[in-house]
């Protein structure tokens, strides 16, 4: 018994001091928050950028630390996991990817065929979750990560969490996690929308509306240089186009798998075309997508009905819409028409240029097929969608005018 106890004791000591295979102390690991993917100099290689959070910043214990909140390093390699190993030639700790929040892909890489290779290998490791968001940056991903300099949220994971959540709630960027990317890419139908962002200022064109921008175009003064706006359209794992914030919003309203919480938007004032009316758009029900499909001709007729509510926030033209029945009718018509037109434009582009849809509508055609070989033969991307007859209807269910009955009459005030 005595000997037995001794052996147990030694064994326990042994465990305490050395630990087992997978044991890793927290302070011996570096936590990557963002990964950047760029094309490497040579064909088939890639440049990986890791944004590593510095634990000492933001914790009260080590107050007075002058260190940066994050360390951003870049390294060339074949795939993400081996790159983390190579990076250890100048990073002191083991790099773990479990806390990764975003993957930033440069537009250059996203447009090339290689993109699918590198992102596939990322999904192989359990360290990168399916919930990681995908961002396409206009510049090189390493530049994006280096330039991004949030003023308020020092810790990078907080920045991405707050930034993306809020932007997604307003609908100007899509939901773009890896899970969805693989669903759509592997499903070989529909288009995937990734978040579009940049830290570079582009020439600003003042369009007059609030959401017809892509990242970089928004006139901004002060604050962080990084802008998130619009989406990058992926077809079969390759970037084909960039769409602006407004089009992203339309995609969000037409796709039942996307969530959007509030949409403050402006619409042209039908009576005083100089001005625009601001309104809070809300959509309580999923859009109704009615598909009828003719097997023989492989032709689909899609009719989309979106019912929505609107709360008017501002009428700068000060025209009485609230109490004047006639004006109200005009306004309703004009808003519905406006939305329908914009949507139709986008659908037309996707049918003619993209050859597929960013709305995940292939879901609704599936039920007409008996099995997958037949469905794949039907070919949504190449045959069904581009030739489909699509009809869009926006139905304004309720129009509210907020707490004020009417605006003050400008002429009376001026008088």
């Amino acid at each position, binding site marked *: 018994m005595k000997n037995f106890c001794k052996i147990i004791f030694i064994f326990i000591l042994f465990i305490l001091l050395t630990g087992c295979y997978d044991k890793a102390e927290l302070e011996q690991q570096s936590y990557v928050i963002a990964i950047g993917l760029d094309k490497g100099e040579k064909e088939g290689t890639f440049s990986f950028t890791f944004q590593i959070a510095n634990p000492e910043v933001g914790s009260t214990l080590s107050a007075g630390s002058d260190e940066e909140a994050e360390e951003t390093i870049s390294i060339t390699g074949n795939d993400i996991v081996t790159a983390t190993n190579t990076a250890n030639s100048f990073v002191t700790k083991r790099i773990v990817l479990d806390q990764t929040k975003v993957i930033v892909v440069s537009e250059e890489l996203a447009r090339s065929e290689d993109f699918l290779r590198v992102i596939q290998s990322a999904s192989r490791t359990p360290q990168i979750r*399916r*919930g990681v968001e995908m961002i396409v940056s206009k510049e090189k991903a390493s530049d994006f990560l280096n330039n991004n300099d949030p003023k308020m949220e020092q810790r990078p994971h907080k920045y991405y969490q707050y930034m993306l959540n809020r932007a997604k709630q307003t609908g100007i960027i899509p939901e773009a996690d890896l899970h969805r990317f693989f669903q759509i890419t*592997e499903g070989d139908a529909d288009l995937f929308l990734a978040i579009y962002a940049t830290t570079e200022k582009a020439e600003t064109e003042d369009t007059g509306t609030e959401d017809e921008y892509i990242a970089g175009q928004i006139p901004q003064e002060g604050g962080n240089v990084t802008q998130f706006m619009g989406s990058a359209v992926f077809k079969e794992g390759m970037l084909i186009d960039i769409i602006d914030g407004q089009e992203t919003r339309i995609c969000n309203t037409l796709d039942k798998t996307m969530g959007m919480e509030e949409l403050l938007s402006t619409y042209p004032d039908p009576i005083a075309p100089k001005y625009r009316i601001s309104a809070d758009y809300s959509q309580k029900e999923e859009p109704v997508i009615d598909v009828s499909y003719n097997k023989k001709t492989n032709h689909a007729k899609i009719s989309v009905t979106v019912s929505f509510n609107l709360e008017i926030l501002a009428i700068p033209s000060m025209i009485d819409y609230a109490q004047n029945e006639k004006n109200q009718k005009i306004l309703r018509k004009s808003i519905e028409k406006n939305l329908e037109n914009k949507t139709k434009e986008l659908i037309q582009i996707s049918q003619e240029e993209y050859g597929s849809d960013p709305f995940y509508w292939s879901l609704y055609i599936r039920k007409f097929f008996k099995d*997958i070989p037949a469905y794949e033969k039907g070919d949504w991307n190449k045959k069904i969608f581009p030739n489909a007859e699509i009809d869009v209807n926006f139905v304004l269910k309720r129009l509210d005018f907020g707490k004020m009955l009417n605006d003050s009459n400008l002429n009376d005030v001026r008088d």
Partner: protein
Amino acid sequence: MHDKKTLKASEMFAMVTMLVGMKLTDTTATLYAQKSQNAFWVMPIISFLVILPSFLLLLFLLKKYQDKNLVELLESILGSVMGKLLGFFIFISSFLLIGLDSRSHIEQIKLLYFPASPNTVIFFLLLCIVFLGAKKGFEVIGFASKISLPFVKISVLILAILIMGEVVWQRIFPIFGSGLTIVLTEGVLKGSIFSEFFLLTIAYTSLRKTADFRIGALFGAFFVLFEIVFFFFVYTTVFDYNSIEKISFPFHDLTQFVSLGDYFTNIETFFMVFWLLAGFLRFIIYIYLLTWIFGAIFNISEFEPLLLPLSFITLVIGMIPDNSVVNETVYRDTLLNYVTPLYVIFPILLWGVALARGDLKKQ
């Protein structure tokens, strides 16, 4: 009062659910999806329907020949030699299956949570715990299953609730997946995923009343079927047909995917805890039943000392496949296909012989 047989239908139910219900988390889903794509969620129903008549027949025979367990029943119908031989076949087939199943189980643990640890070490630890647990005896295994069952099932329910937001039910279309015939034939061939039901009949006489066994087993069987079908449905609708083929462990992909608000984004360890608990219990039950059958075949009434050698033979079998992909797609797939006819036919054979001998009329 201190009757040895204290297990009731609820413990039986818990054991069936633990033993078979774990199938929803392992690679069975992938195995199905390889063949039938997004229609794989209906395949358990087909497999179940193939197995169910035989299982009911076996229960009927057990009821007729009162106070006999599986091996005793085989022997009393087919005679000692033939009975033992058939029993031995059942034992060998299940024993190979447990070897491969446990390998697949430790592959999951290793790949997802302990990438640096060698297979052998995890396997060894698993079997040590399984062995020590199984040594506590059938009664304690029943109690442990019963008490852990609610926790395990609640964790799975939480997962189901959290993933609901990602479910897109249209993904079940096209309804027949890769084709009706493939779905049907594969479903029939994989009937053996429910073969554990038959192993449980070795414990037929070890419950308080034999009626408890029948009630527990049948309720358990239907509950398990429901559970598996429900989760396979969730896999289909979350992953879609192209992805599900590529994912080896859909359950763990789900647990890695879900998050509890913005603050708890990586909560897979929470589910892993209950999954591990259920996994341990599953193999404890499995090993115990197999050892029991082995003991019954070779007339070893004190079979519990055999747990140790059998556990380690399991380890040896489990270590044969080179890697998890081979283990899944070659060995396990083939074995499941070959074993199905055995389980479908033997109760019918028993019934036929019993009928011919006129045993069924007497009682």
